[in-house]
């Protein structure tokens, strides 16, 4: 297979190496793993959202002829494993011992000879519950007298998890007090779910003789998970090997450690055989890491001339029954304080209260960029709200307030240092591509005929590539990533990375990075990932951090190899290293370009009898750890054109123009694929996706019939554009793009629908804008100020 390497360099739209196996159906996902003597596990889950466990009787299940073990909370408690730490310094029940706290919570685990028997045996377990009042509404959860969900925690007498704030409150209040115009809105970013195509699962293989645990698992962060399993299960870390094979999508859903994984490990210990556990679709939707669930009160202050002065927000963050958010430890609300967005403000302040409810735990997932999705949605909705208030054009209002190119590096009033950007150019590119002025004319004409089209804008700035280890860690693990690079004698290279692809194309992109640095073809670079025994330590793939952190590590380690090659080449060419220059992918003697050597020749020489200079051991291999000096700040301008049928409330997204600036693009085709995915996410969140609950705490989104994902029919032919503003502090100027479109697109869709419905006086509709919600807004004249 050739990936299209040209003399112009290794960057470009080369086909993905991974696809050769995927399009043949030859991928190896968790359920493809078959080990000798492997057993199958199944989880018994709570049908109730809140109940005390009176008794668990597993005797009938244990009597099933094909059952090998039944694990209950009691079994685990005896081993000290009934509770495990979460990624947010809380604890979570592995199997419930005292209470169940959300519908779908893990209560027991059956290990059987096959998955049918395991499932059958679940029905033989009898659990007596004493129902308790469930609380699924975060406002009610904070009300006096609300049932205390986490009575397992010492001294806990309410459902409040944390109060957190950022920005200068006093200064912000001053700015607001002096402002000509202040607009307020209540905004709900409802609970959604990443819903990866492959659900979570694992195969645990514990060797009772050696004490080694091999765990094949759906993990976005194999190394972090190894450390977590060492901490959680009390196993020595050097005897744990985590292998993440092909992963069918993650989007943050595969960052946490789930009870099912631990149960499979314990099952393997008890049964002395490997245990496979793969959750079904409903289990994935009902019990694993969700996203969003933010109720926000937002205010924007401006002058009458349209100069935006400040933003103020307070939010209730529903974290579910256990605080299992995955984010840098110092930031309990993630990067929500990115809410100043892309604008040059005088002041901003936000406060966030975390709340326990009887819902599944999680909260940072679905490509949310550590809550920047919520922040961007808030900001971009508020800019549109301001435009309505001022009677201003939303494009002009944005243009008027964007941070200017000369202001970079730009420090925001909430403390972020944006690295680079030319925002007006990108916005103008999007408006031009959309034909913005023509669209406005068309809109006016259609309205005369009773047709309602809307044009929605969103301009977002992301902060990705977490992060500088002195500021950012997860459970004490600094967010740096390692890379090692071996160059074989024939010049073929093997790159080991600490991040884990779930479809992002790391095997291709990272090969391109190394190839570009070493002057070889991407075909000659094999990328190894997902196996802790074969790769260096690092924090894994989420928060769009692979290219910003691990990609930098790959470039740096390749440059180390290149530097070693220079010394060897000098010996080969009988010159001083200082007299060599790197040109066209080779080391050559300055002023004598005929005397040159490429990496393959140098690698062979490095292993040959050639007398090597002092300080070179005899090969080119190198390793590194990359600790990013700052985050990277990709950004983009999006325009959505939507048609709304006010008679039925149906919304059709007609066009979507996305101009992204993610710095240098290593593989533009993979970047485009990432953006396509994120834009579809945005349509899904804006129009149909919601994980809702009834009063009893029943999850109403437990299948793909109820939890709707957008299809090709709802997605227009995406119109992509780009500007390129390299990151000044990243070794190759790349900024990351994995979450950009998910972050930036929901507001554009909502803004388009609101824009379409302006003649009806509609000023806000919460997501998802289903036909019913749109029709109710049109006919109930509900506005953002009246949302419950």
């Amino acid at each position, binding site marked *: 297979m050739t990936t299209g390497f040209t003399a112009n360099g290794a960057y470009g739209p080369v086909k993905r190496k991974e696809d050769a196996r995927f399009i043949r159906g030859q991928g190896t996902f968790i359920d493809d793993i078959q080990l000798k003597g492997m057993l199958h596990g199944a989880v018994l889950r709570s049908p109730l959202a809140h109940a005390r466990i009176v008794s668990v009787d597993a005797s009938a299940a244990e009597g099933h002829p094909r059952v090998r073990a039944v694990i209950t909370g009691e079994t685990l408690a005896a081993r000290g494993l009934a509770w495990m730490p979460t990624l947010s310094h809380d604890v979570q029940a592995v199997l419930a011992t005292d209470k169940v706290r959300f519908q779908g919570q893990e209560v027991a685990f059956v290990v059987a000879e096959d998955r*049918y028997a395991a*499932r059958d045996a679940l029905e033989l377990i009898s659990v007596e519950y004493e129902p308790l009042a469930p609380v699924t509404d975060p406002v009610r959860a904070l009300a006096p007298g609300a049932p205390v969900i986490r009575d397992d925690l010492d001294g806990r007498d309410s459902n409040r998890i944390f109060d957190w704030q950022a920005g200068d409150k006093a200064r912000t209040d001053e700015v607001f007090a002096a402002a000509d115009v202040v607009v307020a809105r209540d905004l709900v970013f409802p609970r959604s779910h990443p819903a990866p195509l492959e659900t979570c699962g694992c195969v645990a293989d514990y060797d009772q003789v050696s004490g080694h645990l091999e765990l094949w698992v759906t993990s976005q962060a194999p190394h972090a998970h190894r450390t977590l399993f060492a901490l959680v299960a009390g196993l020595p870390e050097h005897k744990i090997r985590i292998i993440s094979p092909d992963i069918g999508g993650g989007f943050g859903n595969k960052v946490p450690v789930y009870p099912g994984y631990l149960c499979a490990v314990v099952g393997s210990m008890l049964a002395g055989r490997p245990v496979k556990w793969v959750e079904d679709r*409903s289990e994935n939707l009902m019990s694993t890491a969700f996203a969003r669930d933010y109720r926000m009160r937002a205010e924007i202050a401006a002058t009458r001339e349209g100069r935006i002065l400040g933003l103020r927000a307070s939010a209730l963050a529903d974290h579910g029954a256990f605080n299992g958010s995955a984010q840098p430890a110092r930031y309990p609300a993630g990067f929500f304080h990115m809410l100043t967005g892309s604008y040059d403000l005088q002041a901003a302040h936000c406060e966030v209260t975390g709340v326990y409810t009887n819902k599944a735990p999680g909260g940072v997932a679905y490509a949310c960029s550590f809550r920047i999705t919520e922040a961007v949605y808030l900001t971009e909705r508020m800019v549109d709200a301001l435009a309505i208030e001022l009677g201003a054009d939303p494009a002009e209002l944005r243009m008027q307030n964007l941070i200017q190119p000369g202001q970079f590096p730009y420090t925001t009033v909430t403390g972020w240092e944006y690295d680079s950007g030319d925002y007006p150019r990108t916005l103008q590119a999007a408006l031009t591509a959309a034909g913005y002025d023509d669209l406005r004319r068309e809109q006016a004409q259609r309205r005369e005929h009773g047709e309602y089209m809307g044009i929605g804008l969103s301009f977002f700035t992301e902060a990705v590539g977490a992060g500088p280890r002195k500021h950012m860690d997860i459970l004490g693990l600094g967010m740096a990533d390692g890379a090692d690079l071996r160059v074989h004698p024939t010049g073929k290279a093997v790159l080991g990375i600490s991040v884990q692809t779930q479809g992002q194309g790391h095997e291709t992109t990272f090969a391109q990075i190394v190839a570009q640095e070493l002057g070889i073809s991407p075909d000659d670079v094999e990328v190894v990932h997902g196996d802790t025994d074969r790769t260096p330590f690092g924090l894994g793939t989420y928060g769009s951090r692979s290219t910003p952190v691990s990609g930098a590590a790959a470039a740096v380690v390749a440059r180390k190899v290149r530097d070693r090659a220079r010394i060897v080449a000098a010996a080969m060419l009988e010159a001083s290293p200082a007299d060599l220059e790197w040109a066209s992918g080779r080391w050559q003697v300055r002023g004598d370009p005929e005397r040159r050597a490429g990496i393959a020749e140098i690698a062979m020489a490095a292993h040959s009898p050639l007398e090597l200079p002092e300080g070179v051991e005899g090969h080119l291999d190198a390793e590194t750890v990359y600790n990013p000096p700052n985050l990277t700040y990709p950004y983009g301008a999006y325009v959505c054109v939507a048609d709304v049928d006010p008679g*039925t409330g149906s919304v059709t997204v007609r066009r979507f123009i996305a101009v992204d600036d993610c710095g240098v693009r290593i593989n533009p085709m993979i970047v485009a694929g990432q953006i396509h995915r994120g834009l579809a996410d945005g349509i899904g969140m804006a129009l149909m996706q919601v994980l809702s609950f009834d009063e009893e705490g029943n999850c109403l989104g437990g299948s793909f*019939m109820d939890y709707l994902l957008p299809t090709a029919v*709802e997605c227009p032919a995406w119109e992509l554009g780009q500007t390129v503003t390299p990151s000044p502090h990243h070794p190759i100027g790349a900024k990351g793009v994995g979450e950009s479109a998910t972050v930036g697109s929901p507001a554009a869709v909502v803004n388009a629908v609101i824009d379409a419905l302006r003649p009806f006086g509609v000023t806000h509709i919460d997501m998802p804008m*289903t*036909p*019913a919600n749109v029709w109710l807004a049109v006919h109930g004249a509900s506005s953002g100020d009246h949302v419950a």
Partner: protein
Amino acid sequence: MQVPAQVEYEQAASVEHALDLLARSGPEARILAGGHSLIPMMKLRLAQPETLIDINGLSELAFLEVTGDELRIGALTRHAGLLAAAGAGEHFPILHDAERVIADPVVREWGTIGGSLCQADPSEDLSAVFAALRATMVIRHPAGIRTVPAREFFTGPYETVVAPGEILTEIRVAIRPGGGSSYQKVGRRVGDWPVGAAGAALWLDGDVISGTGIGLTAVGARHFVAAEAEEFLRGRPATEENFGRAGQIAAENCQPVSDQRGPAEYKRHLASELTTRALRAALRRAAPRRAGGQRRPGDG
């Protein structure tokens, strides 16, 4: 992974054989046709039949033909087959309107017309369609066949008059000249069950409505029918005003329930709005033929 409970499996070699298997297997046996409702319910263990009697090999039930003044649809006809049948669509555009918005191509390729009707899901599109068309259901039992009007076929949510030991084999629709029909559906997404839907068939005598059928989906209409609206229209001129009023009457006489797809208030509105739109479209389709002229582009 979702796995069903233990189940016996039998393959029927003929309709008689299927009836025989049904008789021998008892009331916990289920006919397996396309399986697109039954198998998911079994995987979720909401259904745990003791025996599945697979009729997918019965080609005698997979037919679709116009005989004389009747469209006859075998119960094992796949959705895709009905959608591909030009004759069916020409006589009854409502059938193709509905089939285009039922589930997705994969489901339509294997799901069957008879299976959909026997499932009798309150949100099932074809129930309202055949109710609007006043179709006749043909049911086989060990002693012979009986026929039941579509409007008497459904006895409640997920319940029909098909008794244990019986099989729905055929749906017949009378072809009458001078008619037009349409189906209008609102969903949250392609492939989703309808939030609400309405189907209308109209027959005209001059400008006067000589016959009409209005079917409603997912809005709690008795037997999937807007009987009061039909009664109102009969003998009245086919005007926009009357269509609007018929929609209102349809809405007043259904009992939608609130759920994730929308509140009852909205669904009631849809019953009205979509009934009116379906009547309007049915008239457009009837009109050219009534005048003996060319059909206009876009009339489907």
